[in-house]
């Protein structure tokens, strides 16, 4: 691990340790926050007992489906919009302001259309993530050096071969940024939708635990979501860094 990595780990350990001490010493009301060790113990008991396995499967399944759909569809739409400059010019203001719109207001409309099924949650996840992927695709294609198009012509490559063998790999670092953002946004979209209105899923269970003052359950599930989100994002970040280093791109 790098020196920065060790510092990062130390910051997390210190923060968790400080919270643990504060809870144990009674500086933090037990009815508000429980000690991290209690959260971990509660989570372990929950997993060992197989409690909420169905909810976990449902939620993480929807997250994966939403992210995959957002990435594939977002990339395809990005390619299409990039090929149509006038359409792009017309859509640019919508993309720029998209995340200023609280898209959760459309959840009731989706429930009215699709009922209380996983579909509205899935669509909320896709809607939250897809524009990040479209924007990343447009950004990546914009940054493909023009000389590569000339190289393609010198090699007498057709449009599809040029796109697949030159443009796509050249744009890959920016597309990967889109993948990372879509993953984060998809995760947020699904959990938040479940938390607000869904009849099922981990977000719903957390919401119910909150209403019942069941702190061990609520914090155990929050910890689970935190661990999953951190592991997935750290994995994607490490992969991204490896690619970027190979290409001589400096990423923070």
């Amino acid at each position, binding site marked *: 691990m790098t020196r920065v990595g060790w510092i990062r780990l130390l910051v997390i350990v210190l923060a968790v340790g400080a919270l643990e001490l504060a809870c144990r010493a009674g500086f933090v009301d037990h009815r508000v926050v429980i000690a991290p060790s209690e959260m971990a113990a509660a989570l372990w008991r929950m997993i060992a007992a197989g409690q909420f396995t169905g909810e976990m499967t449902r939620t993480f399944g929807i997250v994966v489906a939403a992210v995959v759909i957002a990435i594939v569809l977002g990339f395809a739409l990005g390619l299409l919009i990039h090929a149509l400059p006038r359409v792009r010019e017309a859509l640019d203001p919508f993309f720029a302001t998209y995340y200023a719109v609280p898209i959760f207001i459309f959840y009731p409309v989706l429930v009215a259309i699709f009922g209380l099924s996983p579909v509205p949650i899935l669509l909320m996840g896709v809607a939250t993530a897809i524009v990040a992927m479209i924007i990343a695709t447009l950004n990546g294609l914009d940054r493909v*050096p023009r*000389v*590569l198009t*000339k*190289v393609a*012509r*010198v*090699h*007498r*490559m057709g449009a599809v071969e040029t796109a697949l063998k*030159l443009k796509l*790999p*050249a744009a*890959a670092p920016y597309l990967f940024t889109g993948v990372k953002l879509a993953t984060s946004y998809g995760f947020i979209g699904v959990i938040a939708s479940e938390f607000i209105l869904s009849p099922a899923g981990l977000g719903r269970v957390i919401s119910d635990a909150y209403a019942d003052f069941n702190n061990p359950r609520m914090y155990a599930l929050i910890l689970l979501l935190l661990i999953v989100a951190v592991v997935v994002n750290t994995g994607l970040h490490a992969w991204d860094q490896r690619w970027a*280093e*190979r*290409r*001589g*791109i400096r990423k923070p």
Partner: protein
Amino acid sequence: MTAPEVHARLAGVTRVYPATAGHQPVHALGPIDLDLKRGEFFGVVGPSGCGKSTLLEVLAGLQPATAGTVTFEGNRVAGDVPDGIGVVFQEDASFPWLTVWDNTAFGLRRTGVDDTEVRRRVDDALAFMGLKDFARAYPAQLSGGMRQRVCIARTLVLQPRLILLDEPFGALDAQTRLLMGDEVLRLWRRTGATVLLITHALDEAAMLSDRIGAMSARPGRFLDIVETKWPRERESTIVSDPRFGEITGRLWDNLRGESMKSLGYAGMAAE
């Protein structure tokens, strides 16, 4: 003695960029008449923006000529880059996602050449360009000069009969450019290809070329074609030959006024 065969010909070639929103049409090039003899090294020098790169792209088939005809090996060049032409660009055109070896093999793999032959040609090109020890490296791990050598190796493996070099050393320092010049001369001698080199550096053109075309400010036309009469076996040490100074002097006499025009010193150029 028979006259050398014409390898590529530009006859009355002009290039006018059509008007775009808020801009007038731009007459970038010509009319240009030029016969490239098979196996010669032809340099093109001229002031910035005179249409040197446009000339190269029209000859390669990357841009259409507005008027006139371009022929390569007797066939008209129109729309597509003909088989047998290789181009090395000024910009870094190496593929950062591929190793040096895979960069070099890129074009060859597409042509259906069998794997053994691909390996042989790529290994040979990398050895020739001094990149053998960097075969598994990625372009980001190389210097600018080495990346340009990767692009030259990628062109070389396809065994082009006409090599077009568009200011390939423009981004390199003076010493590296001299050394790269030596490498290009070795490449030219070994392949027997016809080479057209676009450059803004008079010394580079004088050192490398058999003939040098000095172009006017836009629209670019040949003002003078200078024959260097260098022996085929030459290298960068000819820069100390007294004739080297005469050649660069003659080129500068042609280009000084044109360069001033291109910089907007029209009055001074007339004096």
